[in-house]
């Protein structure tokens, strides 16, 4: 059986001058690699240590690395065809590690794989299969880059062309060696062609974006640990990313790891609506900065390479970070740049200042008197949390002060009462600090987090339920820096757990509505509803909750999906504190998304976040007649409940 396998032809013997020539070229190639790579590594290592970084528990890191690097699962999942082509090249490189090692050892007579031996023959043939796949893969990637040319790949990169050519030559010279028999000059020629290509490839790696070959496995392995995690500040002189001296080792590593694939840019809502922000350019800007000024510089980061305007256009939707195949964490970088600008007072923005001043003095991001919340609580007879109820119902700024947000809260209250779940609201509540956290105001965020943590501890709250995914995220993750927050869940998770108890009344509504639409029913309200669910960024990508809200929405009609959904959901435009800032440049993110949702033909847009809700309310109203109805998932449930409780 093995005798039938083709044999790789290798030169039998090398003479002294050949060995000397190879040694000299290999030395030059390694020097070429190190001359560039050494300083890069130096810049990464000279950067500041990452405060709060923990290597352990290491299990998740290993799992992520196997999944994202070895199996290339993320690359393939997010862009199957291109991802698979890339995976073929990557796997071939892995298979070739042994081949290349043997190849270089052979010239000194140290080859450990005999092409004619059992093991060698099998392995070389095994590698040959990968070589074929790799050649095909790289050809495909070449065609895409030079002929299909997607927008996010940017200008044509001749470096990439050269690299693709080198890889193709490497593979074809290897494969060709199966079709010649030695000893002959053809065998020698192929061997040297392969070797020279290899030695030319090595120094090119650190000079091009192919540096990701070396760095990205480390970048993926050394992630901060969770999605869009904002690191703590350290010491009295840390105000975020102000200058080079503030760049941490992880940020520098990530800046040099970027492979410029543009997935971040493709999915960025700011970039898609004609704004200046391009997550890729933010990362490449840091790389440019490091190359020019280095990691100890006092030169501001927002200046020559990155702009303040771009940094403050980010909605922190996290689509970039989620997509990034090389482990770059864009959200902490962009928030870091904002921290640097806000914590030092360099950011001047009328709306931003207004928000900060409102929260310095008052309790909510909307700048309303706290008495408005009291009135709402009183008018609707919401019980005050006294430690005996199961849940503390966290209203949040939107739920406590915004008319639409209040409707959502009241719908949840109806459902909880129907289910017999006990709950109470806090007498006083301050903004969780979500918008100021994402805008980079650490002083204000700390004040708000500490005040809330204290109030919750005093009230003996164990479990929080809220309608706002931003509150959920901030309470659960961001407050950890200042204490131990209570358990918190979003109402979609609560409702999904109680699905059996709410199925009956809600689907009854759907059936009754379908057969006999009553006159009293609001327009468009029938059992034949088609519902499109919009995944809020802070529920989906941030919390990995995708199915629960769909289970709820599906009770009231037939679900349809928007072209961009689940982890690819397109932001409503409100996150990152942007709901409180002024007019957008370019198109409005909310209108682009609302148009996409409306184009599904659904009669109802179901949301699960009061910020999405308020953004779409305006955007859908702007569409005029025929726009779909906009409801939170809990409102869909509540209107199916019997009116008399």
């Amino acid at each position, binding site marked *: 059986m093995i005798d039938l396998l083709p044999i790789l032809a290798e030169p039998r013997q090398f003479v002294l001058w050949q060995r000397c020539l190879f040694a000299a070229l290999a030395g030059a190639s390694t020097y070429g690699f190190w001359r560039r790579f050494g300083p890069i590594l130096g810049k990464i290592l000279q950067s500041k240590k990452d405060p709060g970084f923990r290597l352990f528990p290491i299990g998740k890191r290993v799992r992520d690395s196997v999944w994202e690097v070895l199996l290339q699962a993320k690359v393939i999942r997010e862009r199957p065809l291109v991802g698979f082509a890339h995976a073929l090249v990557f796997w071939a490189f892995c298979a070739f590690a042994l081949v290349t090692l043997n190849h270089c050892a052979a010239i000194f007579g140290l080859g450990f794989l005999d092409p004619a031996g059992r093991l060698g023959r099998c392995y070389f043939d095994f590698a040959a299969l990968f070589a074929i796949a790799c050649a095909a893969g790289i050809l495909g990637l070449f065609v895409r880059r030079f002929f299909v040319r997607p927008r996010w790949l940017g200008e044509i990169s001749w470096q990439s062309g050269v690299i693709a050519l080198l890889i193709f030559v490497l593979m074809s010279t290897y494969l060709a060696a199966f079709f010649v028999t030695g000893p002959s000059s053809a065998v020698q020629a192929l061997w040297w062609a392969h070797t020279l290509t290899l030695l030319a490839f090595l120094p090119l790696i650190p000079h091009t974006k192919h540096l990701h070959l070396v760095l990205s496995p480390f970048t993926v392995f050394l992630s901060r640990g969770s999605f869009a995690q904002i690191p703590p500040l350290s010491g009295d*002189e840390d105000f975020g990313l102000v200058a080079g001296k503030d760049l941490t080792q992880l940020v520098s590593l990530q800046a040099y790891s970027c492979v410029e694939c543009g997935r971040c840019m493709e999915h960025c809502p700011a970039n898609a609506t004609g704004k200046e922000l391009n997550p890729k350019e933010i990362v490449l800007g840091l790389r440019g900065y490091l190359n020019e000024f280095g990691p100890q510089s006092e030169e501001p980061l927002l200046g020559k390479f990155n702009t303040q305007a771009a940094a403050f256009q980010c909605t922190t939707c996290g689509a970039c970070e989620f997509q990034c195949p090389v482990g770059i964490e864009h959200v902490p970088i962009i928030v870091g740049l904002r921290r640097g600008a806000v914590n030092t007072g360099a950011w001047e923005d009328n709306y931003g200042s207004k928000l900060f001043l409102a929260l310095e003095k008052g309790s909510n991001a909307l700048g309303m008197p706290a008495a408005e919340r009291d009135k709402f609580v009183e008018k609707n007879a919401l019980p005050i949390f006294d430690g005996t109820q199961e849940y503390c119902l966290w209203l949040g700024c939107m739920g406590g002060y915004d008319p639409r947000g209040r409707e959502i809260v009241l719908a949840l209250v109806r459902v909880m009462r129907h289910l017999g779940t006990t709950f109470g609201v806090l007498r006083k509540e301050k903004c969780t600090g979500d918008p100021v956290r994402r805008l980079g105001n650490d002083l204000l965020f700390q004040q708000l987090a500490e005040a809330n943590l204290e109030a919750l501890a005093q009230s003996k709250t164990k479990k929080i339920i809220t309608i706002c995914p931003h509150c959920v995220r901030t309470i659960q993750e961001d407050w950890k820096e200042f204490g131990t927050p209570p358990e918190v869940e979003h109402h979609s998770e609560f409702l999904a757990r109680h699905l059996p108890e709410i199925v009956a009344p809600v689907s009854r509504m759907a059936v009754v509505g379908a057969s006999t639409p009553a006159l009293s029913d609001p327009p468009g309200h029938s059992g034949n509803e088609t519902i499109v669910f919009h995944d809020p960024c802070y529920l989906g990508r941030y919390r990995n909750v995708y199915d629960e809200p769909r289970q709820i929405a599906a009770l009231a009609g037939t679900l349809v999906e928007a072209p961009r959904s689940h982890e690819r959901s397109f932001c409503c435009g409100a996150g990152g504190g942007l709901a409180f800032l002024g007019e957008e440049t370019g198109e409005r993110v909310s209108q682009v998304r609302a148009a996409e949702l409306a184009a599904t033909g659904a009669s109802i847009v179901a949301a699960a976040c009061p910020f999405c809700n308020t953004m779409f309310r305006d955007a859908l109203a702007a569409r005029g007649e025929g726009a779909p109805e906009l409801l939170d998932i809990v409102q869909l449930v509540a209107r199916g409940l019997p009116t008399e409780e």
Partner: protein
Amino acid sequence: MKIVVAIKQVPDRDAPIRIAANAQWIEDRDLQWAMNEPDAYALEEGLQLKEKHGGEVIVLSAGPERVGSTIREALAKGADRAIHILADDLGARDALGVAKLLAAAIKPENPDLVLTGLQSEDLGLGQTGVILAELLGLPHATLILRVEKTDAALKVKRELEEGWFQSIEMPLPAVLTMQSGGNKLRYATLMGIKRAKTKELRAVNAAELGVESAPTATLQQISAPKKQKSTLILGGSAKEAATALVEKLKTEARVL
């Protein structure tokens, strides 16, 4: 330019106000406190003048221990140093008494300009700044929205009634009482708070300043406003109701 900004700590707008048992002042335990808003504008004006023309901004505040937090806020926003007049009996002092305290602390500083808010958000007397000018023997102007420094003097913009403004030139040194809204306030920053820790905060006792507390005017009683709400539904046809409404707006509400 050496600028003194006199600020007052007042109950936060969202704080629940309860009247004290003796009905002479409010219950000031468990209250949240904030910088009096017109004083915040005075501070902002002072900081902007310093940033433009150089010099020093000194904040000055009278009150008990808790006033320290408001002073630190002012230092965090950019004031260079602070004087805290420790006085637990501020409620018992009238505007003259408070102005005497402030004047005694300001005099040795010999400033070029004294800024303060036109009135406080709690008592709203609007007297302190003006009396202070008199005690210091300095010219003053009230209700100021904007201050410009010319070669040797000041050009200020005053707000008058009904949307009228007045521009006047006046000599230095001077006392100005500032109106809210003339500037954009700056937000407090982490860097400001950290830097504020190293700034000088000098505390002096009222007794050290040699100011007696016997008030010339005493507060007799305070009370919450009575709820008065009367709704009148005007009947008849739309035309009749409109006529009646116009009549009432003219004669009773006097807004037309």
